[in-house]
């Protein structure tokens, strides 16, 4: 052990103490030799999850936060099952009951709290248990036989969770509570009443406004007597009448304590070498029993232990959720209005929904919600930010969904949250960090998000929100179980790795890629090869040589195969504008080739159907001669730019939609995209070109151009999202190119823009296309660069003899 390292001793192997070490290791891994003493025999586990362990919804193993390896990997000396009984502040040592003496340079006290055991006769009887540790849970479980009777003293958060857990284990459970309703510190009378009702339906029995006089029994507990004389039977009594900071050790060392160990804003006790965090401390007159404040304290303590000396702990405002599956309850702030406060109430008895908001000076002071708690984090956020809510007061009770634009789908409530909204109150994780982690680290499961961000890794009550964010960020690809979907059976790799991997590793051909990424088949299959070909093409414009053998037939021969093996030919008609000469040319060609069907397509073009493969180059030569190019009606590529006649003719037209459409089509034609890409330009909001169901839609208005993205008129109709409004045609072109390029670089092969946007979220697109002018310009530049190599007409090339083998028989046997 190096001499010059300072020694940090932590008394208390619980959530607050270990979180402080984690924070410290993040900042300065080598500052200290760390020794941890824990009175319990387990490594650090998540005390908040004792209730699910008790109810049988979770095994203990899943609550372990830091397993034995963690201590070893971080070179932390851990003494479990050792109670520290003495701090010698003169010699700077701590001493355990069995005589281990360890010197310290800095000491951190994180001894937590003890359950309050009421001073009533019989409290020492076997069968009377506190509720604080896994040992308590094990003791309860040993006693929890179906049909036996349990009495929980204390109808607070913890008491109700214990009662629910024991009830799920088959016991007959009664809750004894001093007040008129349960959880009076978090709920008002109405909310408490609703909660009581819900719990009664689950089989709990309540004795409210009752005081315990004595616990009965000779050798073990048999019952309980109230002050009013009534007696009830009990085989198990759980004390959950509150917690008391565990200050005995600090007090014996002469450290100043009141209810808890007194600490300053730097989490220092009155002895500057000694810090304290967690439930054992008293800060600005407050003690805390919830996890979020403990973690805030841990951050501050670590900052000072690492000698950064920058942070101050200034107290916490706390919100609460009850972890009883199926009961939604949220509470935060001061929810009992005082004179001058406004109270907003929503009560829907049939739906079991109750919401109360308390406003003071147009700011949210407190919230109680029961039955529908989706907006809890939103209210809590506004409470902490001190947001002025006078503007939204009318709609405030109905939640965030009710503000702003309508017409967004389900799941919009998390989509609408700002990135700064706090999702996980325990660990202080906001939405933006979760989304970033999901995107950057390609996270796909709740467990991965927990591992990377710690969101929902403590009390778990925000699990639903985190899942919603995950689902919202990933769209259809989110599955509650594992994990990334491989592209096909040839590989373990998923679509989302591909574009970036190709760029990062400089992979330039399909065989090279398959070798580098350990493809399981020699040359892939019809699923992965077209995908890889696309990603390579998008990644290396002008450099990658398109592999026609990895193209689906339509893209290989630049025509659409029909059910009888013949093909369709659809020439490009720019912006849907044609002329007698063009029509005549098409008519003559159709006649000459005896085309069986001539059809007006949905994209304002003319389709010639039933052309044999051998005839394609000849027909193309004639079309090219007449000035046509391929319409790419067969490709994962830009299809058409549909327009209306706009201001040139229409009495309502506001802009030259046809002219703009032609410009857009001339810029974008020939580009390969993850899936087909359709554009439309409407000359006014009557929207005759149906721009709001296109991948990229432009709706002209008098003052400029509205840009809409992510529409789809196919299998699943989706109306576009409004992206932004711009004022010039040049901007339309730039936004269009940038959007297509973002889609090309980010979407999975065979993702239309609609599911892509549902997965990545509109804010992602806005961030890149609207907010970030420099990024937009770069995307646009990359799009234009790649277009330099993609606007050679494939029909002309083939009419001139390219890939002739595609169009001729090898031989004829007669």
């Amino acid at each position, binding site marked *: 052990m190096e001499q010059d390292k300072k020694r940090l001793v932590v008394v208390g192997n619980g959530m607050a103490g270990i979180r402080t070490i984690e924070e410290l290791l993040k900042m300065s891994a080598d500052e200290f030799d760390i020794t941890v003493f824990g009175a319990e025999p387990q490594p650090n586990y998540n005390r908040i999850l004792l209730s699910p362990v008790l109810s049988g919804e979770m095994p203990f193993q899943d609550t372990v936060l830091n397993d034995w390896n963690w201590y070893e990997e971080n070179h932390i000396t851990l003494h479990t099952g050792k109670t520290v009984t003495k701090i010698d502040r003169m010699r700077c040592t701590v001493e355990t009951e069995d005589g281990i003496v360890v010197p310290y340079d800095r000491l951190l006290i994180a001894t937590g709290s003890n359950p309050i055991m009421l001073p009533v006769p019989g409290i020492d009887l076997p069968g009377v248990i506190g509720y604080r540790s896994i040992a308590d849970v094990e003791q309860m479980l040993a006693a929890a036989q179906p049909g036996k009777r349990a009495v929980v003293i204390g109808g607070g958060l913890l008491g109700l969770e214990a009662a629910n857990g024991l009830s799920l284990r088959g016991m007959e459970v009664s809750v004894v509570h001093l007040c008129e309703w349960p959880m009076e510190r978090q709920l008002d009378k109405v909310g408490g009443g609703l909660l009581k009702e819900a719990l009664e339906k689950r089989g709990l029995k309540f004795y409210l406004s009752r005081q315990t006089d004595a616990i009965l029994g000779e050798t073990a507990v048999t019952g309980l007597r109230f002050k009013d004389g009534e007696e009830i039977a009990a085989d198990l009594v759980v004390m959950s009448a509150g917690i008391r900071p565990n200050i005995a050790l600090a007090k014996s060392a002469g450290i100043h304590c009141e209810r808890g160990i007194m600490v300053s804003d730097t989490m220092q006790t009155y002895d500057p070498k000694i810090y304290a965090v967690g439930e054992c401390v008293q800060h600005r007159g407050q003690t805390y029993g919830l996890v979020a404040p403990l973690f805030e304290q841990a951050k501050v303590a670590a900052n000072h232990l690492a000698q950064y000396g920058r942070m101050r702990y200034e107290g916490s405002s706390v919100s609460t959720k009850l972890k009883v599956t199926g009961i939604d309850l949220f509470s935060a702030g001061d929810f009992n209005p005082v004179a001058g406060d406004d109270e907003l109430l929503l009560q829907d008895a049939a739906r079991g929904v109750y919401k109360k908001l308390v406003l003071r000076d147009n700011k949210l002071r407190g919230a109680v919600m029961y039955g529908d708690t989706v907006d809890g984090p939103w209210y809590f956020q506004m409470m902490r930010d001190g947001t002025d809510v006078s503007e939204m007061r009318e709609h405030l009770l109905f939640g965030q969904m009710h503000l702003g634009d309508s017409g967004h789908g389900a799941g919009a409530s998390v989509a609408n949250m700002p990135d700064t909204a706090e999702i996980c109150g325990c660990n202080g994780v906001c939405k933006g960090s979760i989304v970033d982690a999901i995107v950057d680290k390609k996270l796909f499961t709740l467990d991965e998000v927990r591992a990377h961000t710690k969101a929902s890794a403590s009390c778990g009550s925000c699990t639903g929100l985190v899942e919603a964010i995950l689902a919202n960020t990933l769209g259809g690809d989110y599955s509650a179980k594992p994990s990334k979907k491989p592209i096909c059976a040839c590989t373990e790799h998923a679509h989302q790795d591909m574009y970036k991997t190709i760029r990062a590793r400089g992979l330039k051909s399909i065989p090279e890629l398959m070798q580098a990424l350990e493809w399981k088949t020699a*040359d892939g299959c*019809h699923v992965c090869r077209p995908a890889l070909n696309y990603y390579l093409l998008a990644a290396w414009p002008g450099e990658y040589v398109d592999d026609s*053998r990895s193209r689906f037939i339509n893209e290989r021969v630049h025509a659409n195969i029909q059910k*009888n*093996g013949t093909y369709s030919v659809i020439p490009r008609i720019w912006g849907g504008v044609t002329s007698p000469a063009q029509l005549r040319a098409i008519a003559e060609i159709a006649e000459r080739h005896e085309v069986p069907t001539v059809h007006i397509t949905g994209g304002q073009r003319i389709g010639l159907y039933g052309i044999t493969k051998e005839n394609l180059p000849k027909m193309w030569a004639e079309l090219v001669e007449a000035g046509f190019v391929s319409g790419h009606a067969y490709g994962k590529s830009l299809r058409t730019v549909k327009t209306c006649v706009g201001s040139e003719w229409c009495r309502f037209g506001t802009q030259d939609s046809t002219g703009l459409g032609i410009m857009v089509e001339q810029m974008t034609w020939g580009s390969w995209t993850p899936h087909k890409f359709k554009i439309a330009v409407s000359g006014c909001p009557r929207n005759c070109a149906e721009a709001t169901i296109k991948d990229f839609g432009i709706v002209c208005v008098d003052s400029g151009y509205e840009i809409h993205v992510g529409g789809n008129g196919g299998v699943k109709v989706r109306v576009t999202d409004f992206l932004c409004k711009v004022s010039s045609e040049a901007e339309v072109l730039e936004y269009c190119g940038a959007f297509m390029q973002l889609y090309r670089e980010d979407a999975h092969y065979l993702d239309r823009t609609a599911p892509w946007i549902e997965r990545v979220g509109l804010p992602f697109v806005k961030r890149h296309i609207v907010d970030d002018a420099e990024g937009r310009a770069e995307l646009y530049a990359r799009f234009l660069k790649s277009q330099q190599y993609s606007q050679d007409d494939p029909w002309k090339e083939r009419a001139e003899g390219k890939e002739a*083998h595609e169009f001729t028989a090898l*031989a*004829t*046997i007669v």
Partner: protein
Amino acid sequence: MNWIQVGNLEDIPRQGSRVVKTATGEIALFRSVDDQVFALNNRCPHKGGPLSQGIVHGKRVTCPLHSWVIDLESGEAISPDSGCAHRLEVRVAHGELFLEAEAGVCKA
């Protein structure tokens, strides 16, 4: 039984296919990535799609119409689909392709 020369190996692109026309229908010749050559009727057992237009991968081809996958060695559809595109004998000798046929001559 005759062996009729129908062209050279080089005439078929690797991972590609060419068609030989006969009086009784088209025959598709496939060349795998490792230069093996296979011959099947150019009709998918499903709905008659032209197998020669499919993507060739390993010793398989995927029909362009509804993505049935056909084994090039046997002509059988890969389970769960079932059906057969009937293979024919084809040989490569000194880079030249010979196709088995009842009778007939090759017209270039």
